[in-house]
């Protein structure tokens, strides 16, 4: 392409879609064509299934897909993270083996970072990978692993050197999940769902070519994955709506989305369901109670102000202006909003809040709010970590004195034995 501008890109992608899009193709067949054309991940390098398109022009391509109703490459969160990480840090062999199959959705992935002993302190991982003979042997336990029971591959953070300080002793691997050394157990949550898993690794093996980047560089690679995860957190909520059009390709995409979104079906309740509050207040006859009205108004105020704050951040980004502090506040605000919403729902529900499932209001939705909201202030970075991030990165306040920096990790105190 000699010159890339909005009009030329639009014309080119439109012509290609008009010539190639066919809703009766199989999903994988269609996505393979898409990957061949470079329009599936146009901002990727042309050497790896992309077209070197500046990210500013990606929305143009998305608009054209939407206009014609064409399905894109697999967008499910973790596949995107795996692909982005491998694209940045992987070897050519890894790119060859995984990128296409991630884009087509043939391979599914999970993320093996968190451990029972390292939650907020992800770099404190103690799952070990030891080089024995010509392969890495992995032992340890991972937790909070979404879709591990379905995954073909795992993004694994493991400790390869115990004499180096915390971050420097970590390496990053691609683990074959379908092997005898990997055992997956669902982890039941307090709200009754089991969206995550525990993964037990007992002499699981990784061939040397499945090390990502170099030995000891695992933290840098992890940071790349986490950065993409944070960036995609908003997207996760919006993408997961299948088209209701007819055609084999649409049918297969709907099935894919249903599988991928299964673990997230309680997420709206986790956020507090502010959207239900006024309706519920009217239904329950509490709408005229001045105390309840004050609480509803406080909740709506916070919710609206947070929404407008996010819009300010997004507008600044779109205009290419430096983002102010407002961009870092959304996660914390959503915790406070979820808690306030759960409080209001309890007030509105009265004795019915004693019940759950079909005996309770809205077929259990309200009860599910009350027992799901505690996840909001923990998942994806606790409120405590969010406070630290805001204080240190936005307000430039000094870091807490650290006791593990510069010390061999084997000497750093870890969880007390019970």
């Amino acid at each position, binding site marked *: 392409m000699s010159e890339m501008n909005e009009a030329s890109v639009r014309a080119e992608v439109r012509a290609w879609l008009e010539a190639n899009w066919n809703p009766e193709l199989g999903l994988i067949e269609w996505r393979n064509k898409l990957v061949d054309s470079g329009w599936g991940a146009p901002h990727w390098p042309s050497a790896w299934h992309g077209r070197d398109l500046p990210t500013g022009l990606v929305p143009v391509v998305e608009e054209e897909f939407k206009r014609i109703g064409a399905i894109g490459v697999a967008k499910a969160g973790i596949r995107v993270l795996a692909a982005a990480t491998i694209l940045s840090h992987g070897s050519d062999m890894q790119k060859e083996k995984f990128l296409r199959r991630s884009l087509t959705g043939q391979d599914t992935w999970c993320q093996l970072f968190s451990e029972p002993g390292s939650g907020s302190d992800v770099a404190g991982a103690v799952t070990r990978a030891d080089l024995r003979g010509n392969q890495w042997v992995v032992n340890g336990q991972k937790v909070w692993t979404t879709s591990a029971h379905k995954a073909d591959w795992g993004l694994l953070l493991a400790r390869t050197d115990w004499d180096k300080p915390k971050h420097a002793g970590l390496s990053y691997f691609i683990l074959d999940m379908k092997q005898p050394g990997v055992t997956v157990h669902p982890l039941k949550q307090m709200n009754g769902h089991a969206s995550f898993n525990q993964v037990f690794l007992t002499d699981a093996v990784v061939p040397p070519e499945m090390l990502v980047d170099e030995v000891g560089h695992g933290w840098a690679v992890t940071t790349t994955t986490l950065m993409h995860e944070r960036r995609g957190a908003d997207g996760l909520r919006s993408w997961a709506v299948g088209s209701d059009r007819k055609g084999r390709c649409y049918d297969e995409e709907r099935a894919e989305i249903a599988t991928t979104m299964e673990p997230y079906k309680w997420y709206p309740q986790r956020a507090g369901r502010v959207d239900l509050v*006024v309706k519920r207040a009217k239904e329950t006859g509490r709408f005229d109670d001045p105390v309840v009205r004050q609480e*509803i108004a406080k909740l709506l105020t916070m919710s609206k102000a947070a929404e407008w704050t996010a819009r300010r951040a997004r507008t600044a980004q779109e205009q290419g202006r430096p983002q102010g502090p407002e961009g870092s506040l959304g996660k914390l605000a959503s915790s406070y909003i979820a808690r306030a919403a759960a409080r209001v729902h309890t007030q509105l529900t009265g004795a019915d809040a004693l019940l759950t499932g079909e005996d309770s209001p809205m077929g259990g939705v309200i009860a599910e709010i009350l027992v799901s909201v505690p996840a909001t202030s923990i998942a994806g970075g606790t409120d405590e970590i969010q406070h630290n991030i805001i204080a240190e990165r936005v*307000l430039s*306040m*000094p870091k807490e004195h650290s006791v593990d920096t510069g010390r061999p990790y084997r000497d750093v105190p870890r969880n007390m034995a019970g």
Partner: protein
Amino acid sequence: MKFSFSSEQDEFRSNLRRFLTDRSPAKEVRRLMETEAGWERDGWRHLNETLGLTALRIPEAHGGHGFGFGELCIVLEEMGRALLCAPYFATAVLATGAIMNAGTEAEKQKLLPDIALGDTVATLAAAEDDGRWDAAATTLIATPAGSGYRLDGHKSFVLDGHTADLIVVLARAPGSTGESGLSFFTVRDDAAGLERRLLKTMDPTRKLARLTFSGTEATLLGEAGAAAAPFARTMIEAAVCLANEMTGGAERLREDALAYAKMRMQFGRQIASFQSLKHKAADMLLDVELAKSAAYYAAAALDDGDEDVAATASLAKACASDAYTQTAIHAIQIHGGIGFTWDNDTHLWFKRAKSSEVLFGDASHHREQMMRHWAA
């Protein structure tokens, strides 16, 4: 623009901030707040000659610059930040608002140009001893007398009421009740039968007066008996403008407290390195940013003519009230003992936070207003 400012607006803001930093340092705030008037004619004139601030929102046809609430609220946010001692809110928001919302074309031509020039300092007298800013609570009586009217009764909590040259007064016809029979009047400062008493205010930077009217001559402003709607509109504007003023003060307090925490050493380290303070500082940032978003949105909603602007205005006022007060409490706490002293400047903004929290109705009042307008 609800979610961003134009580059012209940004430049306007930085010019204003420079001007106010220069003209209204804490030392000057302290000097003026100790005076009975609370402001000085020279400084006021300079403000209007240099920047044309009272003219900002007045239409060009009436001697002003014809800007909107977007610009007016930038001015108020910056004044709140600098704690400027001037009768700006009374003149440019309250009196100008009432005249623009209620006045006839001829009345606007007569009254607004002098306000735009900064020659007339004006205010609005609405609340009475019971401290309610809703029109129905009005008891002051206006009786027709010759070609004009005579006022009998009192007004209280009148912003800069002891120094204003022109007072817009809300009064009712004899025998009327509720929202009917209400009219606006203008009264000059030297009118016979007008008695003005400066009230002792907790916030010395916000002067309030009690006015007594005894057969005081007054001129009708706008349509007789039809003031309820323009008054309500004026109070919506006032809530939005005050919300913006408050966010300016809250941000200033937040920044000063943060700077102090980085400078103050205890136990051999900056107190800003303690997690308890870091988490407090992050919450303060969240409170202030949310309040700013609401205040900016509400200002733009006035300019855009949004139908639900009454709800948005109350939301912004309630949000700013809670945020400013909470920020002030945290700011004093972060300063520790020195923050409780008269010599430290924190209490000046703390008191402004308190006075703003209550002025035109507290957060609970506005939350109820918001529910009535929005979720009915």
